[in-house]
């Protein structure tokens, strides 16, 4: 494919992405072309790269999220652009975000398992909101009494938070092994008994790793 052809593909892809107003996958974009003109995947990847470059120094950028590519306003201009919309962006409660985090990092997970970790009941409202926003969906039922639904996140969830895949979520903090904790406690208790007072000096080497 020559230069002129590549630019032609690029303009059509650009036009389509702007017309769609939602993310489009490489294959969806390729399907817009008639069979004879359809660019190979490799060509498309090159085109997407060029398109990305063409947005340098502009008010928008090309971003790849879970369901494909989309043009979006650069984050630095959001303060001005947000004035276009009267409604303030929605804030989400901690309970909702914690539930969402558990589903995102621990999927597939049941409501009961979420409640075990959070230590409180999960309100039906929260689950409903997450389902209605299409951030989570039911992917099956656990084979235990009551057959509770198992939840997982969707591509829409990733799209909304500007992620291409779950790997891009901020990493979870490490957790100490239970046996290890047990041994630490043994030691501490030992120390407490010996000195008959809780020892503050130990704090440093007990820091999480």
């Amino acid at each position, binding site marked *: 494919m020559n230069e002129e052809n590549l630019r032609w593909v690029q303009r059509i892809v650009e036009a389509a992405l702007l*017309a769609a107003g939602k993310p489009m996958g490489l294959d969806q974009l390729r399907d817009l072309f008639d069979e004879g003109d359809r660019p190979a995947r490799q060509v498309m990847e090159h085109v997407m790269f060029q398109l990305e470059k063409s947005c340098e120094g502009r008010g928008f950028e090309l971003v790849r999220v879970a369901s494909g590519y989309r043009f979006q306003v650069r*984050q630095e201009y959001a303060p001005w652009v947000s004035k276009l*919309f009267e409604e303030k962006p929605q804030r989400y409660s*901690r309970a909702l975000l*914690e539930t*969402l985090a558990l589903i995102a990092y621990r999927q597939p997970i049941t409501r009961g398992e979420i409640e075990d970790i959070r*230590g*409180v009941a999960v309100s039906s409202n929260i689950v409903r909101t997450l389902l209605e926003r299409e951030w989570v969906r039911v992917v099956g039922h656990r084979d235990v009494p009551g057959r509770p639904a198992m939840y997982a996140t969707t591509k829409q969830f990733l799209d909304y938070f*500007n992620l291409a895949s779950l790997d891009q979520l901020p990493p979870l903090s490490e957790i100490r092994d239970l046996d290890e904790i047990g041994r630490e406690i043994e030691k501490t208790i030992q120390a407490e008994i010996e000195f008959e007072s*809780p020892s503050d000096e130990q704090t440093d080497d007990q820091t999480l790793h």
Partner: protein
Amino acid sequence: MTDESVSDQTDVSDDATVAETAPLARVSGKALVDLPSDLYIPPDALAVFLEAFEGPLDLLLYLIRRQNMNILDIDVSEITRQYMDYIGAVEAIRFELAAEYLVMAATLAEIKSRMLLPRQVLDEDDEVDPRAELIRRLQQYERFKKAAEDIDQLPRVERDTFIGGAGLPVLPSRQSSPDVDLRELLLALQGVLQRADLFTSHHVEREKLSTRERMSAILATLNNDQFVKFESLFTVEEGRLGVVVTFLATLELVKEQLIEIVQAEVLGAIHIRSRASN
């Protein structure tokens, strides 16, 4: 390795920032960042106070952080005392207290009593040390509490970015036809036949479909009132089978009174003409 840095941030030892950046609650517009240290809490504030927590684990984490303690090194006696004080205060004003808070109170009480017992009791115990179990739960909860905060910080559509779109030019209208699977067609036919059986029982005969196909073809050839030579319906290329099919189709057409056959003289040329017309 990246995990390490994250866990450093979550470490309770540098906790002070958390209380500052995340107000516990708002009481008539004012951020409630810290709780009154004496235990006299006005009833209104106490209600707000409880709402500010996501449950007993969250409340415990708060108490631990306020004491500048490491989760792994909780002073159970002190934390239990503070927790019970809050629970007691809430109960004194007879707020409905969620069961989870009371269960936690019982757990704390159990841990405290165990620690007061002589050591051999702990040793002979095969089940999970309740203090270790509590620490595990606190750690587990804290990492997802942190994860929730992280998710909230992710740049998100409608807040930190907006999807780009442009107006459409005049679009040509496009229509495409549904796809049909042959089996769908056959299934539909089966349905009709079953229904039709209710009315007539011998509608279905053994019949070569090619005959009916040929009947259509012959009719299409006889598209005006002209007579056509009978032989012209046959082609050599089709071979013997083709001749038979055409012949059967002709007979069927006669039977259905769709064509007429005329032979002007004995052994003379045979002509056919459509009785149907276009």
